[in-house]
């Protein structure tokens, strides 16, 4: 399978998840993702579930409290002006969370499928305009920059005793200082790069050259998965 085939597969599944209106349609997509995981990832399929569960669980908890516990009706019932029921609210929450879960799962499956490749090699192999590839690479690099800034700010504040390395009331009171310190760090890192490193080297031009590799052609295996995803896309909204 090629990165382009995997990216297209994930994109179609995401569109289908957004278009699906029922749990049956979403179940079809889940089955497709499980099949993809089973065939492409083998034993690593279960690993793919941890991240989507982590992403969706807080949302599910929040929506459950608000829609099922407090509101007690689904949005459709509110729009129709009927009294409604908590089971309808439960159905609504389940569909929204299942959609988000499938979106996260599709992305995670592709990431794990190409775990042996590096992010730059994966992006470079995509059949996309150079500007789009650069944008993806820069987005990833900024995510890494923010994570690095979090790490170094945490080190500073823990060493000074302003926050604790574990759960603590002090962290609730001083968490905003961590946020401020992270952003100061991000700005400093950005200035260091933009003022000193990048102008001297034309570093972004080097990135362009690194991403300019020719994209490999789609394989029959890509075609099968894309066809299965398109079939699921067609079936999901009407199921």
């Amino acid at each position: 399978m090629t990165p382009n085939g995997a990216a297209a597969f994930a994109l179609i599944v995401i569109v289908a998840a957004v278009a699906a209106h029922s749990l049956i349609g979403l179940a079809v997509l889940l089955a497709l993702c499980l099949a993809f995981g089973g065939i492409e990832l083998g034993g690593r399929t279960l690993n793919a579930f941890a991240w989507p569960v982590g992403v969706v669980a807080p949302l599910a908890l929040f929506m459950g409290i608000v829609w099922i516990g407090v509101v007690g009706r689904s949005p459709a019932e509110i729009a129709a002006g009927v009294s409604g029921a908590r089971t309808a609210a439960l159905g609504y929450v389940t569909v929204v969370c299942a959609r988000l879960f499938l979106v996260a799962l599709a992305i995670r499956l592709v990431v794990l499928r190409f775990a042996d490749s590096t992010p730059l090699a994966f992006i470079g192999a995509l059949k996309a305009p150079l500007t789009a590839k650069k944008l993806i690479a820069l987005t990833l690099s900024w995510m890494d920059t923010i994570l690095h800034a979090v790490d170094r700010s945490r080190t500073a504040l823990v060493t000074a005793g302003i926050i604790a390395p574990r759960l603590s009331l002090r962290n609730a009171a001083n968490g905003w200082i961590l946020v401020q310190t992270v952003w100061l760090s991000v700005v400093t890192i950005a200035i260091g790069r933009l003022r000193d490193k990048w102008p001297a080297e034309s570093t972004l031009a080097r990135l362009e050259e690194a991403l300019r590799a020719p994209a490999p052609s789609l394989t029959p295996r890509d075609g099968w998965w894309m066809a299965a995803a398109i079939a699921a896309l067609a079936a999901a909204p009407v199921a």
Partner: protein
Amino acid sequence: MDRELITGGNFSGRSAALRRRLQRNGGQSFFLGPYAEAALSGLSSTVTDEIAVYARDARRAAFAPLDWSGFGRRKPATLSGGEQVLLALHCFSRSAYETIGIDTALEQLDAQNRAAALDYLGGAESGQRVVLIDNRLDPAAPAPPWSRREAADGPDPADAAETATAAARYACDLAGIISELRPRTAPAIALRGVDFAYGSDRPIFRALNLALEPGRAYRLIGRNGAGKTTFFKLLVGVLAPACGTILLDGAAYRPRASGNRAFALATQNPDHQWCGATLAEDIARRRRALAGRGDVMPPSDALLGSLARKLGVRASDQHLYELPLAARKRLSWLWPFSGAMPWIMLDEPTVGQDRDTSAGLAAIVSHLCAIGYGIMVVTHDEEFAGRIAHSPLRIEGMTVQPE
């Protein structure tokens, strides 16, 4: 071939002079700055990708004192300072750039890697032109092939005026600091059976046993990436040992539960230790964190203000990130010198500092030992280490041993 060593002290305009020389090349020079953000591209998530950004049909030998294949999946930002410099040099050696400018970055390398880097840069293979700032090469008579170039040789008179202003603005009085230092009695430290690993595949310490006495300076020695900074992070509670105990004067010390109450850390990159946007904010937050803890006495505002002035920063509303890097580095010693904590940990304190400043810092460190503090210092600066009576501790084979 051209091998230039730009000489001059801090605030002599040497960094600006280096940048000017590179700019003449129209964005076609490799730049290796003193810290990660100016050493690595910032465009890659793995070491393999960092190399891929630069790798072209290089017409020179690779500089590879480390086997980078073993680092492939590591994030460049998680490498030690020295490893980052070695990675940047490797990237340059694989690139098509013919000029490289290095601003004090080689000072982070251990003796062996530094010798290898200087050999490479001085040799015919490294490129057509190397422009270097390095406080540890003899500025009066640098060894061949390096030719000396004064920072003030620059063509722009506006730069000269700006340089003179900066030198006056950030002038420090390290000798005057000694009279301000308050005596302390540091506790003895004991580590028993400490294990630490980054994940399951990178063990750093195994069954580490060590005893450190107050009133002494210890120098941690080890290859780049051996775990020197990790050792500091374990003591301040940023990292948690997998097992083992840390004792202060025989009592269990758990910084992750009770907070750090013994160690003042000046980090290798000064920007890794600020707790606020301005000096006043940074100090106020540190003092507030200590307030109400009977076992720690926060230093007074007056003392901190006086120390800051002697370290070259005269206004408490000074934005830390607007200071020049050399001034930030000096200011990073403020909290350790304030007497807030009885043990002082200095991580590569002389990187980017000229020889006069290094000598002044060595005098302060010696005095701190004499008045009861415990000192741990990581430095690859032999001249600085030679000025301090110290006990070497070697980090090797996942343990720390007195030499």
